[in-house]
């Protein structure tokens, strides 16, 4: 499974992209990620189920998550104010991975 996760905006106007393959990640990380993808049911979630955003509210992070799996592509966009509750644990873990990558680079 290939994952692309983008964080942009915020008070600091960040633009950060994380890319990862569950085949290549350390097993512990991959397992946690796959577990969260399953428990969040993100692959079943439709963009239309996420509250439509207008521009703002001020300084929230905007997120874009793309998951490639078995020839299928799942793409979802949301922000800190519109993220569905079911995605929050997954979102927190993806943020952790994205910032960790930046700190190491």
């Amino acid at each position: 499974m290939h994952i692309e996760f983008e964080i942009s905006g915020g008070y600091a106007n960040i633009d950060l992209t994380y890319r990862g393959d569950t085949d290549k990640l350390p097993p512990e990380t991959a397992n946690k990620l796959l577990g969260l993808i399953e428990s969040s049911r993100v692959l079943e979630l439709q963009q239309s189920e996420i509250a439509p955003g207008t521009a703002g509210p001020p300084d929230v992070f905007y997120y874009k998550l793309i998951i490639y799996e078995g020839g299928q592509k799942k793409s979802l966009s949301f922000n800190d104010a519109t993220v569905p509750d079911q995605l929050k644990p997954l979102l927190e873990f993806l943020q952790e991975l994205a910032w960790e990558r930046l700190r190491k680079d």
Partner: protein
Amino acid sequence: MGVAAAAGKAARHIYDSQNTMEYRLKLIISEGGPVVEDDAVSNAYDHIGNFRDYFKAKLGRDSIDNNGMDIICNVHFGTKYNNAFFNGKEITLGDGDGAIFSSFARSLDVIAHELGHGVVQWTSNFEYRNQSGALNEHFADVFGTVITQYVEKSAADDADWLIGDEVMGPKLYGEALRCMASPGTAYDNELMGKDPQPDHMRDIYRGPNDNGGVHINSGIMNKAFYLAARELETENAALIWYTALQNLWPTATFNDAVAQIVKATQLLIKRERVRSGSTQKVRAAFKEVGLPAKDETSIPNTPTAKITQF
């Protein structure tokens, strides 16, 4: 005409999100409650108090809505969350990851900036895209810096005019997120790249990112405010800007803001709140950043911005 809601007491309530992305999870302190051990709670409580007191004492405004609404704040939001925001009702602050950013609750200019977005929402209510969005960011930065100078008892001449310097973590010590005195110089490093803010209309950002450059083009207005404050003193410039804010509207452009700021200056001279001669200094400050812009049609303000959410 409807009956106005009874004025509130502008009471502070600080909640602990306990490192989740939940709001109002656990109430730690309400107005006048006993002191608490948690620095994030304690700092947020004090900084919100400074914001509220400045608006009341200097600008005659009673809390965010000018009707004494309570001020709600969430600290320890998310895990190592590198951000702070205003969601239309309350402010939310992350702890930072401790490397790139430190605790956002520690910084007065962050908290005054976020609450400043609240004041904007209850006044001009600038749309958060393109030039009106950059005005939204600009006024929030103005309140952030003005209240910081007030509390630190610094003046326009000796203030650092930096935004976000207090939240830079160990990897970015000495850097800041924005510089009002010299937009475009706040940071330049491998982690974040280079500060993209222009300091003149000729360099206005016309791309779709950041909702049409709301945190980018605010640099142009920020520089003008800095120049005016150097001439008039920060407190007087703040009064002028705040007076103008109340007469601006959701889709206002930079040119509209300049016109209202000049008008507010004239009104305040008439009321003997600022000195005669201030109008010319305000105009000169704007002239230095290329405002008012002559050819407005060449400046993007139609909704061309890419809204990065759906």
